[in-house]
């Protein structure tokens, strides 16, 4: 079992969701995040006081998946979240020991 985590641009969430559904993903958990990286931030000015904000809004998508499903899911992220512009984000994969569905107590494969 793996956990695929993708950090994407907010307005891409809908496309990513559709792409993931297309490759058979039946669930995901997303959180609002802010990212720092090559992509530059912006400046804010209040009564002449100037602030440099280095973080840009991102969305963090978590998908639990079978090992053999991972490659497909990563590809789905790459194609659906890409805008060719700096700041498109990253996808990374973590190993998972086990997964349980709270409602039924099912474990592993059945929990997804």
């Amino acid at each position: 079992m793996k956990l695929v985590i993708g950090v994407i641009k907010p307005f891409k969430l809908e496309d990513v969701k559709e792409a993931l559904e297309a490759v058979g993903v039946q669930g995901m958990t997303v959180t609002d995040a802010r990212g720092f990286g090559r992509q530059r931030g912006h400046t804010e000015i209040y009564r002449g006081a100037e602030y440099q904000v280095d973080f840009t809004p991102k969305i963090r998508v978590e998908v639990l998946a079978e090992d053999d499903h991972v490659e497909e899911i990563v590809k789905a992220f790459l194609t659906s979240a890409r805008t060719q512009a700096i700041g498109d984000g990253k996808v990374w994969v973590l190993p998972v020991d086990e997964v349980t569905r709270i409602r039924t107590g099912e474990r592993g494969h059945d929990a997804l």
Partner: protein
Amino acid sequence: MDTGDTAFVLVSAALVMFMTPGLALFYGGMVRAKNVLGTLMQSVFALGLVSVLWVLIGYTLAFGPDKGGLIGGLDFLGLRGVGADPNPDLAGTIPHTTFALFQMMFAVITPALITGAFAERMKFSAYALFTAVWLLLVYAPVAHWVWAPGGWIREMGALDFAGGTVVHINAGVAALAAAVIIGRRRGFGKQAVVPHNLTMTLLGTGILWFGWFGFNAGSALGANGLASSAFLATHLGAAAGACGWALYEATRERRPTTLGVASGAVAGLVAITPAAGFVSPLPAIAIGLCAGIVCAVAVRLKFRFGLDDSLDVVGVHLAGGIVGALLTGVFADLAVNGAGADGLLNGGGAALLGKQVVAVGATFAFSLAVSAAILKIVDLTVGLRVSSEEEASGLDLSQHAEVGYAFSESGGAIEREPERDVPAPSPVAAVPVPSDAR
């Protein structure tokens, strides 16, 4: 007809109208975010529904020629015969229409006050039906008794300058009935239910305070010394109420709260409403201070009684209304208003106080009985309460298919336009629509 008086009462009517959006915000800030729109709607929609009903039938029931001291005749149905000429029995120096529309604003806010008791759980349809029926069966008669020439309470000599009994006690009693009949919210008394936006509640308080000058001073129906002293008493009632509640909290709970100061100001305004045109400044301060403290204690009782009067309509409007009605019998002063009476402390003896008690008792009993009956009938017909799932997801989604706030713009939604797949006839639409996706 006097232009100064007319200008003042027209502006006062505008101020009272503004109180209803103010009330919407005052209440809206106290509920959870998932119910904010549903709560705002229960005040704002009354501006629509009640205004129309008032013109069609409500006004004539309240202020039409008296029938046995109990109700008005139908002469003013649809405002027939209500025109630019003053009606000397009601207000001699302003157009009759001005009096009618000023009264309309009172009729709008009164049922809106009740909604705080059943916040976060009533069906919108049930709310609308209840409001319409209550206006005609409860508000209109009580308004007639207290304010219309020939109304039995008015004739008895009880004093209610701007609506302590008609508006606040009346609404407070209906709220009591509603809270008991609809029952408690899920998790009441166990789960934390924290106001989602106290800045909204504070803004609402400011608007209510501002509008209340129209409510009370406008009730002088002219721009004169009486209006001025009612204005002053109103402001002092609010100010002292805020101080009273804050004082209670500072001494009993170590910290005065924003919600406490806001609640105290409203409690003071409620209590000064019946007295505004009859008392001088220092008594006005006493009434406000007293109301602030009494109501601060009253709202703390609901948990003891397991009564989910969600936004404390009983604790503020019923308790504060009674305080005001009775203290009017104590502090009323003929020197302030020759049309009034002398209260207990001004050599008037207990006579006035006795009449005030009767007025309060009668309003209490009548409103409780009829309000409860209406609620029961509405429950049996359309049903009062949303389903447990709808309550969990909130009124905004379940009753109105909307959300109050969408700060984070993370798509998560695609449009399902009925017209979506229809070939667009206009050349403009022929141009492919660029999407954020590219």
